């Protein structure tokens, strides 16, 4: 099920919302949210609900065991994380690994299996890993109410494409889930959801309408066309994913849960490190806290810091998908972060506006391998961008127009969390009207969120 579908908007959400606020006690609300998560997830493929439940129950038990047997806490935590990573490894990376090994050493072939990638596995696995590690490091208490914990893992708003919420971030809200619906939360929820929907169906999907055909054959693009396509993709990805994240935050509010924001005007960043503090914040902070710092962070000298940055970003790239293109994209960002750190005194003397533009351009170049279907396609696209060439196939004027509109929006319009939403009647009516307009666009064609594939 996707947020921009008839079944979600006209059936699932109204029923879940009504039942949730009709329920009076905590357990009823936990059970309802947990079940709704299974329905939401099972709509795509019910067979993988078992895997989701196993992941939740296993980490729940691990959390309790860590508190019960503190002397064995480290061993239990590592075992639980290993199980989570094994699940992720089998479903997401096995085929990639087997294929790469077969290419590298044909005499040592692993069987190639057709394994369906369970949607959202990268997200809920990271939820459970962060929970177990937080319990182990005593940053959070182990959940004792199993329904509360399954609600956290199964929460439909963030189940399949994030944000990656830590248990401690919504622990208080979950504990007080039996409270009444507050006007400010309702208004915030509706506003975030509507703004997210506008970003997705009116901006990202319209860009996709013209961009996808243009990228069908990058060999036919001129240099200007290749750059236009790269800018267009940067905008499509931002409006698509930040739109999804806004909707997730909004849906959380509708159920009394404050889900942390995931974007903070990333294309206005003044450096690559700054970009990662603003883009997919829940993932970058997860990688920082559980991987980069775990590897030693910047505590063991300059070169080990660079090594840790590279490792973190390469693994972060691979998290997006089992493909060399993601690995290259991660390595590219690791290299940029290391260079930025290395040249920090010099970089900081560059005017802010120049840094901002340069950062955006570097990020746009990085999106090329991220979007391309293969390394060859990425190389061809980059070649078209950097080696001047003309082409008979002009990029549609509409795509250029959308790029201009998108750039104007990211340069001038505040990020969703910066918009002060007044709890007034006019605003409620306007939000409803905006959602109706979005609905017209939703019915225009089927589209899914780009981050569902990760």
């Amino acid at each position: 099920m996707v947020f921009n579908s008839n079944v979600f908007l006209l059936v699932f959400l109204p029923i879940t919302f009504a039942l949730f606020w009709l329920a009076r006690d905590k357990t009823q609300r936990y059970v309802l949210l947990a079940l709704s998560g299974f329905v939401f997830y099972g709509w795509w493929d019910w067979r993988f609900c078992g895997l989701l439940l196993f992941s939740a129950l296993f980490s729940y038990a691990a959390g309790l065991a860590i508190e019960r047997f503190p002397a064995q806490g480290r061993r239990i935590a590592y075992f639980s994380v290993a199980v989570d990573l094994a699940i992720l490894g089998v479903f997401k990376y096995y085929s990639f690994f087997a294929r790469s090994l077969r290419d590298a050493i044909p005499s040592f072939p692993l069987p190639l299996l057709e394994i369906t990638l369970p949607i959202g596995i990268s997200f809920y696995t990271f939820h459970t890993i962060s929970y177990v590690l937080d319990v182990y490091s005593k940053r959070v208490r182990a959940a004792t109410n199993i329904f509360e914990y399954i609600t956290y893992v199964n929460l439909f708003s963030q189940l399949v494409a994030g944000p990656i919420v830590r248990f401690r971030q919504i622990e208080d809200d979950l504990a007080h889930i039996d409270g009444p619906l507050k006007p400010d939360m309702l208004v915030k929820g509706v506003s975030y959801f509507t703004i997210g929907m506008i970003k997705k169906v009116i901006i990202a999907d319209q860009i996709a309408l013209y961009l996808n055909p243009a990228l069908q054959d990058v060999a036919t693009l001129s240099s200007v066309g290749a750059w236009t396509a790269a800018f267009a993709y940067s905008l499509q990805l931002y409006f698509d994913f930040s739109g999804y994240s806004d909707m997730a935050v909004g849906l959380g509010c509708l159920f009394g849960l404050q889900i942390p924001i995931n974007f903070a005007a990333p294309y206005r960043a003044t450096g690559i490190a700054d970009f990662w503090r603003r883009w997919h914040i829940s993932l970058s902070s997860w990688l920082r806290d559980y991987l980069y710092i775990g590897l030693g962070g910047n505590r063991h000298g300059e070169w080990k810091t660079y090594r840790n940055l590279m490792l973190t970003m390469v693994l972060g790239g691979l998290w997006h998908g089992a493909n060399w293109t993601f690995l290259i994209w991660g390595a590219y960002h690791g290299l940029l972060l290391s260079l930025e750190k290395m040249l920090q005194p010099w970089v900081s003397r560059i005017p802010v506006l120049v840094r901002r533009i340069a950062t955006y351009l570097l990020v746009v170049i990085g999106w090329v391998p991220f979007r391309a279907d293969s390394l060859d396609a990425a190389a061809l696209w980059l070649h078209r961008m950097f080696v001047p060439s003309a082409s008979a196939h002009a990029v549609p004027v509409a795509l250029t127009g959308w790029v201009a509109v998108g750039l104007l929006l990211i340069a001038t319009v505040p990020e969703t969390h910066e918009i002060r939403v007044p709890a007034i009647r006019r605003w409620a009516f306007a939000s409803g009207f905006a959602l109706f307009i979005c609905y017209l666009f939703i019915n225009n064609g089927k589209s899914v969120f780009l981050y569902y594939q990760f």
Partner: protein
Amino acid sequence: MDAVVSSAASIHARSIRASSRTWSLGALFLAGCFGPAILYLGLAYYVNPVRDFAVAAGHPFPAVRSDYRNEKLTLLDAYLEAAPRQPVGGLVLGSSRSMLLNAERLGRHTGLRFFNFGLASAKGEDTLAALRWSMGRKGQVPKLVLIGLDVESLRDARSIGDSLHPLRELATGEPSTLEYLEAIVPRMAAWSYARSVLLSIYFAVRPRQPVVGFAPDGTLQYRFLDGQRRAGTFALSADMPGCMALCRRKIEETDALSPAQVRYLKTTVQEAQGAGAKVVVWLTGPHPQTAAFMAVGTEYSQLLSGARAVLGEVAALGAETHDLHDTRSLDPAGEGWYDCNHFDNTNATRVEHVLTASWEQ
């Protein structure tokens, strides 16, 4: 004690105020959603931009798309009346790609009086309905029937506006009211439909020349694009990406061919043969670039294989068949096209030659 009671009462009052405020905001939000939705649906019904609704009182706003089906019936009547002693000996059936086949040229090749009864977005059932209309209602017994078959015509996915709904008498299956509403409401609640409503209102204020039209024999004419060609301003590539995306959307919603539409097609072939006609079925296709674009990430390749299998099945019924999905053998440069989905007169002439090559006058 009084202070405690007063404080509790004040908290209670605040809570009630907050609650009633929450619900009034929620109600306003819903009013913002559904109020304009109801108004819009009413307006769309009244404007009726693509003639989804048969309104006895007529249509105050112009249609933004030609009402091909009604128009074809009127044309056939006029065509028969113009030469009552010359029956229609050749019939073109199929979807919009068949509509481009020139009935006059076909007549010259075959010596038969041709009528083009191709219908936009025709499915198998539309083709059967058109044949039955010509033979049953109008008493015409064609000697040669050319049927255009394509992947799109064998899908179940259809919208009411693309069907024979405005000609309920032609439709082989009358939808129930519920089925009708299920199909029409989501279609109306889409931006493309809203744009049609706005365009219809705009055209009521500022009338325009028709973009397409028909020759008296039913052949489709792209008047606007032909005008552009004459003026040298036509550019096929300009519209390709948007056009390809729209074609792909149709396929994205389809994962299998419809057995019912295949059955309708076979019945068409058998009924024409039963009346003594020679039947030629040809597999049509979009611009090669469009076909390649649709094949990635959709079921198009499998659907196309299915359509080719259907072509084999109608060949087994005795029909002559031609696989012209890939037009590169006829048009290597890929330039004989009006848009990403419809070839122009140059390619139509080439197709007509292939389809009538074996006909002996």
